[in-house]
């Protein structure tokens, strides 16, 4: 059986908090786990598959410590695939494959972080082979400035403008204004975005995602388990993974590994860009969205700037509504990782449970794309196509 036919997403939950000084990181993982399971009509006792990225605290890439913390006693499958913020999008497809292989039946995927009120995740010291040649301490490179290198080159090659990048943020803020939990409630204009302070030219503060505490979780189960539950499932139609590395120094900053992960997902799902009703696009920065839209084939390479103008991305009636929760740019980017919220909002859209004002009419097929790593150096992509269950 195709792994995607064997399993469905049955539960999804986003933590309502954006500043959580009084909760531990493990507690946030626990709360979103329980929330997603409750959405599905399940409990922690039902979980036999556990999937986490390295945002989870503790041993085993987090899963050992978190399984202990949660009291998961029935685990038959564990996966700590780490791909930055995109990790949960990998986890959903890995969970589907594990379920298809008979390794587990109820897979729990969690993500959480608290960079606003706790310690920053990641770190680990300069031990990687490339570090002395490009790490922040040697070049002053930071996350914003390396993405700025990509934006600058895209502008140079294709004439993309700051105003066009700003359109992406504007659409996100319009969506967030319909989301009572969104961190940013105020609608911004293109002028507001380009007049916000330059962090690393050409990226302004408003081109950057939020820093929020919080998290989310999703539950993937076998078809058989889903039939026993009273909750609308979401089908996993196709998935593709890819990596783009620095290639012996032949870096090209104008595209992402979505050029490979996208076609893999479309082929498996048997659909094209024209079939997509809604997209959750990883939005660490406005330039991330723009390059990914091009790379997935929603427009020609270099045309992204023109594509996003005139409300293309604005729900419910734009040509390609995106990130209708407000995304990482305006709603939530918990622990500097936007993967889980991308999945959750796609599930909401396919179930018809998005916020009033941004629900895409008759939303049947959604695309979720995550970008882990750095547009300015090396990255990994995961594309997933989800479908409403008939």
């Amino acid at each position, binding site marked *: 059986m195709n792994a995607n036919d064997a399993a469905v997403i049955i539960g999804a939950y986003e933590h309502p908090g954006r500043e959580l000084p009084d909760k531990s990181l493990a507690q946030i993982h626990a709360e979103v786990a329980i929330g997603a399971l409750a959405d599905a009509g399940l409990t922690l006792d039902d979980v036999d598959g556990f999937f986490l990225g390295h945002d989870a605290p503790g041993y085993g890439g987090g899963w050992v410590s978190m399984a202990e913390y949660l009291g998961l006693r029935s685990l038959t499958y564990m996966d700590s695939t780490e791909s930055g913020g995109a990790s949960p999008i990998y986890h959903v497809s890995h969970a589907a494959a594990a379920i298809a292989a008979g390794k587990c039946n109820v897979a729990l995927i969690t993500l959480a972080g608290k960079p606003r009120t706790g310690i920053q995740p990641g770190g680990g010291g300069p*031990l990687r082979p*490339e*570090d*002395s040649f490009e790490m922040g301490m040697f070049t*002053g490179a930071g996350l*914003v400035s390396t993405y700025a*290198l990509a934006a600058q080159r895209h502008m140079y090659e294709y004439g993309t403008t700051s105003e066009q990048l700003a359109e992406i943020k504007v659409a996100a803020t319009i969506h967030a204004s319909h989301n009572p939990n969104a961190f940013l409630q105020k609608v911004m204009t293109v002028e507001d975005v380009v007049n916000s302070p330059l962090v*690393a030219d050409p990226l302004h503060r408003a081109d950057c995602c939020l820093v929020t505490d919080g998290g989310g979780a999703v539950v993937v189960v076998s078809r058989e388990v889903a039939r026993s539950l009273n909750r609308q499932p979401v089908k996993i139609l196709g998935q593709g993974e890819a990596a783009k590395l620095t290639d*012996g120094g032949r870096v090209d900053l104008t595209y992402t590994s979505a050029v490979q992960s996208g076609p893999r997902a479309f082929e498996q799902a048997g659909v094209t860009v024209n079939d997509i009703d809604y997209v959750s696009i990883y939005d660490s920065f406005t330039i991330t969205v723009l390059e990914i839209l091009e790379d997935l084939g929603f427009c020609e390479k270099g045309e992204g700037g023109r594509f996003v103008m005139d409300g293309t991305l604005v729900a419910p009636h734009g040509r390609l509504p995106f990130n209708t929760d407000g995304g990482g740019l305006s709603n939530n980017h918990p622990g500097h990782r936007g993967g889980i919220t991308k999945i959750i909002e796609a599930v909401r859209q396919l179930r018809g449970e998005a916020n009033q004002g941004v629900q895409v009419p008759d939303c049947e097929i959604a695309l979720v794309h995550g970008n882990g790593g750095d547009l300015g150096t090396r990255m990994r992509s995961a594309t997933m196509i989800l479908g409403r269950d008939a």
Partner: protein
Amino acid sequence: MLPAPKPVVNPDTAEFWKATAEGRFLGRRCDDCGEAIWYPRPICPFCHSANTRWEEFTGLGSVYSYSVVHRAGGEWKGVTPYVLAYVELDEGPRMMTNIVDCDVDEVAIGDKVEVVFEDTGDGNALPRFRPVQSQSAQSQTAQSQTA
């Protein structure tokens, strides 16, 4: 002057960092497929041959992309605005680095640049790049491109 902390030296890169103390900019070249390799390592990432060797690169190149950084953390907080860039070396690879000794508002994609070494105080130096000023250096760049 930008911060210049001592690099992490490992067996792959010891020769590179040693040469920086003498003002020489080394890269790695594969003798099987002929490609120049960045960052330096003994296995060729193009053809996977171990038949690679050190080569003294010209230290000349052009700006592939750049960002004038206005906000930074740690030691870099005090040196804003500074220029982060990718320089395309005349040998082919693009390396992340800084453009120094320049008016940050004048840097542009395509600018010709040359390597400078900034002492770490630990027996080696970090390679950075500055705009090529003199006519002779310009023609040297042109020569190396046609070579």
